[in-house]
């Protein structure tokens, strides 16, 4: 078996790919890679298309960093990896929808994001837009058997959440099969990115998934800075991490409460909602926006932290440290709550590994991966934090991973405040290097690793930007985790995953 480095040596290196190598391969090497993925040697980080080509990011050993394979699609086709390795199936369906490139031999060629309502087909394809023929009704997978019935939910849900459709097949109260249909939040961000200037593009990136606006803006900015080889001032780098940890705190507080709420345990919801609100108010005091939107951009950050902000953050730390331990005890000691979370929605370690699940979803199922540690980017390489892992893979384990992450983030915020360097927070960009450039970045958002791959043209405008949300590898395993659970536990289970709709629909 070749190592990833060996396999990559057989391809033709693409000059200027930063910071990780990208090589041009033929169809045979492409398939060999798929085979090795399927055998479990490597992890898939992403699969996306460009004009007339497909790219696949792979990870063998985190220490060695990712490698990217590219294949030119002769006649608009490429050999399907999804037929060997299920995590790629939805990505290939998306490539087909947006680019019209066909995954040959694919086991599932149903459309994914395209619901037949755009007025064009293959909107980003080279030879199209194709004429639009009415799209046949979507074929949900069959589930047959005595006493089975189906429940259709969404896209408009019963609470204040994002749009998506769930098709449950149920036997009595037990879920026999869940099939997701997504794409309702597809806004065409890939298309809007084309030819956008960096300022516009980073704003779009920050609107890919509202709860991860900091993480996306950070990932995009780092990819752009890598492409343009720009050094960001130290203070900006530290402020970015501060924002990222505040975003993680806000989301974990909100979700821990919301999970308990779905088990009808309202006290936790109220208490955690209070902590979340305190984080958002501190964010407003620090950076002038509750979600810290549009505060990170290529070259640095758009707002500096003043004395008021620091005081607000110190107050927040105090408050959280006073109240959160009591809440943890409450969670741990309430039998009625534990009854709902322990053993519910179990994701097996095998599946988490196969799908390369990021964030608390992976870490609650034994996958010891965190982009802040795997590809240490500044300032995390200078900060102390633990990444903890559990193996039970149930709702309870995902709650606990989040609880531990809250503790780590509080510690990180404190370290950052203690050591925040002085100096400028932004550098100007040398607009357009006169050459096409490319860059990639992977950052740890609150729900897992976000990948951004960026190609800039000679004027410094975006030629192609691919953003891969962690949810791509979390949504599919939710279908498996819910099997055998009762319908009433779905909200609880779903919330413990909290996959992004907008981030995967893009």
């Amino acid at each position, binding site marked *: 078996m070749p190592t990833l480095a060996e396999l990559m040596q057989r391809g033709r290196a693409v000059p200027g790919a930063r910071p990780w190598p990208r090589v041009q391969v033929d169809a045979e090497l492409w398939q060999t890679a798929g085979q090795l993925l399927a055998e479990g040697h490597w992890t898939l980080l992403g699969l996306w298309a460009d004009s007339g080509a497909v790219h696949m990011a792979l990870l063998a050993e985190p220490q060695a960093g990712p490698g990217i394979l590219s294949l030119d699609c002769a006649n608009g086709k490429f050999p399907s990896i999804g037929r060997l390795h299920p995590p790629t199936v939805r990505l290939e369906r998306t490539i087909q929808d947006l680019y019209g490139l066909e995954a040959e031999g694919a086991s599932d060629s149903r459309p994914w*994001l395209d*619901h037949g*309502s*755009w*007025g*064009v087909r293959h*909107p980003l394809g080279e030879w199209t837009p194709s004429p639009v023929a009415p799209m046949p009704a979507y074929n949900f997978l069959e589930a047959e058997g005595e006493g089975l019935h189906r429940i259709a939910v969404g*896209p*408009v849900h*019963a*609470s*204040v*959440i*994002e*749009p998506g459709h769930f098709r449950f097949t149920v036997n009595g109260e037990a879920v026999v099969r869940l099939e997701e249909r997504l*794409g*309702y*939040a*597809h*806004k*065409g*961000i890939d*298309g*809007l990115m084309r030819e956008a200037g960096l300022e516009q593009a980073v*704003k*779009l990136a920050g*609107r*890919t*998934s*509202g*709860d991860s*606006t900091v993480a996306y803006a950070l990932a995009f900015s780092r990819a752009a800075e890598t492409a343009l080889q720009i050094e960001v001032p130290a203070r900006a780098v530290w402020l970015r991490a501060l924002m990222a940890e505040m975003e993680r705190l806000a989301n974990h507080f*909100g979700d821990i409460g919301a999970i308990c709420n779905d088990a009808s345990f309202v*006290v936790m919801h*109220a*208490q955690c*909602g*209070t902590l*979340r*609100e305190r984080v*958002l108010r501190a964010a407003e005091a620090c950076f002038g926006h*509750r*979600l810290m*939107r549009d505060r990170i951009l290529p070259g640095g950050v758009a707002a500096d932290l003043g004395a008021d902000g620091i005081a607000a953050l110190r107050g927040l730390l105090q408050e959280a440290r006073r109240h959160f331990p*009591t*809440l943890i005890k*409450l969670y741990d*000691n*309430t039998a009625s709550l534990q009854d709902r979370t322990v053993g519910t929605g179990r994701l097996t370690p095998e599946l988490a590994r196969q799908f390369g699940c990021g964030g608390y979803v992976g870490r609650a199922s034994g996958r010891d991966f965190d982009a802040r540690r795997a590809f240490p980017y500044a300032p995390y390489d200078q900060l102390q934090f633990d990444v903890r892992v559990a193996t039970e893979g149930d709702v309870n384990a995902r709650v606990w991973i989040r609880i531990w992450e809250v503790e780590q983030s509080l510690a990180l915020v404190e370290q950052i405040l203690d050591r925040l360097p002085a100096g400028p927070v932004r550098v100007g960009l040398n607009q357009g290097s006169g050459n096409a450039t490319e860059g990639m970045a992977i950052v740890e958002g609150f729900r897992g690793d976000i990948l951004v791959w960026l190609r800039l043209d000679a004027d410094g405008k975006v030629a192609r930007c691919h953003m891969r949300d962690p949810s791509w590898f979390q949504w599919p395993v939710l279908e498996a985790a819910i099997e055998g659970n009762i319908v009433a536990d779905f909200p609880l289970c779903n919330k413990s995953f909290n996959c*992004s*709709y*907008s981030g995967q*629909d893009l």
Partner: protein
Amino acid sequence: MHRILFDNLAKGTLTEPPPAPDESALAELAAALERNARRKLGRSLSIRQVDAGSCNGCELEINALGNPFYDLERFGLRFVASPRHADVLLVTGPVTRNMQIALERTYRATPDPKWVVAAGDCALDGGMFAGSYACLGGVSAAIPVDLHIRGCPPSPTQLLKGLLALLQVDKAR
């Protein structure tokens, strides 16, 4: 558990304080909202939220309306699960083409009299997503809108102000 409940009793509520001369915007807003809601609709106003392709930022702030600081339900304003129970549709997002039918059906399922509030810059005109092949570009491109609340996302206070404005609009419906 007991400790938390006890602490809360001892500490008092978090809900923003009753009107004081300054910095009482929220409380004032709350009182005005309540007055108007009662006058127009009796004791409650039921809101059905529809995400028509938002980035989810708007939803986060709409959800924040329920936290102990804003405590929306004290005014008789509440989120309901079905459009058939709703007086107001609160719609977010640039209305993706993939959500258009679902939005229109939800609108039709909401009994008259009803109001439509478009929340967020996207819901006004598509925001950053205007011009995409995948978006209609604003809620009014799909259904009639009574009120827009700007912001990306609008803060909970802005949302409350918007709802208040809605109740003050004298509409013969």
